[in-house]
């Protein structure tokens, strides 16, 4: 159906936004995927994203995405428009929370203490974040962690978790999102599989890598090694400059950082529980 449809209002990291589109199907997808970001007033002036279908058919990419009337992208594919919107929302949140350190990672809380799981794409962050949420950890974020460098508190950014098929959590996804059975990638709101956590002090940072066939293990890095490694996972470091680096240094100096290789989700969870207790 065409016309003008509004999704939201939403808020993330104290930043309010809504999305307008000319396709009702997309509005419904956004309302579903962004349900944990739903918000009722009080987060300040609202940024308006638009996702507009230009009517073209494949092989052309039909979607334009705008932020407050300014074009972000003009040729977004059908199966990528939701992910692209999420990426633009993340950029907005990063822009508006410049005093925080932004790390490419997931964050989960257990017993009032947070662990940050950092790693490159395909290292298993999202899968592990979803698994831990399903196992009772509180979900803080996936992919985009907001950390206060003065207090080392992790602030929530309840982005939906990006899940891929095939994967070890297919059964869980099928159960909570039966309509997404045909998708190889989908965005799963964390509240569908577990609970959401509020701002939580950081107990530790874990650089993770999925290592099939290898025994799961953890080693602790020196704070200087940690800082050096973490700069690789700070996407806005160049823009944040000296202050950003000093902020990251404060975090690396105030909480332990570990390197964890893991083979299975249950092994990983056990090792992470031990890190929460040790941190």
């Amino acid at each position, binding site marked *: 159906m065409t016309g003008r449809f509004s999704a939201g209002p939403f808020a993330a990291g104290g930043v309010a936004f809504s999305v307008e589109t000319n396709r009702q199907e997309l509005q419904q997808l956004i309302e579903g995927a962004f349900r944990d970001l739903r918000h009722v007033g009080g987060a300040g002036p609202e940024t308006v994203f638009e996702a507009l279908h230009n009517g073209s058919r494949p092989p052309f990419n039909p979607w334009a995405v705008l932020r407050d009337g300014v074009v972000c992208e003009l040729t977004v594919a059908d199966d990528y428009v939701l992910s692209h919107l999420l990426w633009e929302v993340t950029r907005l949140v990063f822009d508006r929370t410049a005093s925080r350190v932004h790390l490419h990672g997931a964050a989960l809380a257990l017993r009032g203490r947070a662990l940050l799981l950092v790693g490159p794409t395909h290292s298993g962050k999202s899968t592990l974040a979803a698994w831990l949420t399903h196992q009772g950890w509180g979900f803080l974020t996936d992919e985009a962690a907001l950390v206060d460098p003065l207090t080392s508190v992790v602030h929530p950014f309840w982005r939906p978790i990006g899940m891929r098929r095939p994967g070890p959590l297919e059964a869980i996804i099928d159960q909570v999102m039966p309509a997404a059975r045909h998708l190889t990638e989908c965005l799963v709101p964390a509240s569908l599989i577990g609970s959401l956590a509020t701002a939580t002090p950081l107990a530790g940072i874990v650089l993770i890598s999925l290592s099939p066939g290898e025994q799961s293990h953890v080693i602790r890095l*020196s*704070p*200087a*090694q940690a800082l*050096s490694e973490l*700069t690789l996972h700070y996407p806005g470091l160049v823009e944040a400059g000296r202050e950003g680096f000093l902020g990251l*240094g404060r975090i690396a100096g105030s909480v332990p950082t570990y390197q964890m290789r893991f083979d299975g989700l249950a092994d990983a969870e056990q090792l992470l529980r031990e890190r929460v207790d040790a941190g």
Partner: protein
Amino acid sequence: MSLVGPTRCPAVTTVVLEGEAVLYDERTGDVHTLNQTAAVIWNALDGRDLNEVAETVAAAQGAPVDLVRQHVLDLVPALAAAGLVDG
């Protein structure tokens, strides 16, 4: 103190953690890590000549000055090659 030696480049920010130093070069985004001895030498690179750097570091660390001088002579060209020091 004679000010004829290398100095830390102002575009480089240093964070010292448990004696090790991590250097961030704002111009390039490059990050470098120095061990404890190198971190002390780095901190002494304020324009004094390299002999004075070696003597200062040796006194601070209680190490033989000849040994420290060798560390200085190894480290400073590497720092200069990475663009981290001026002069």
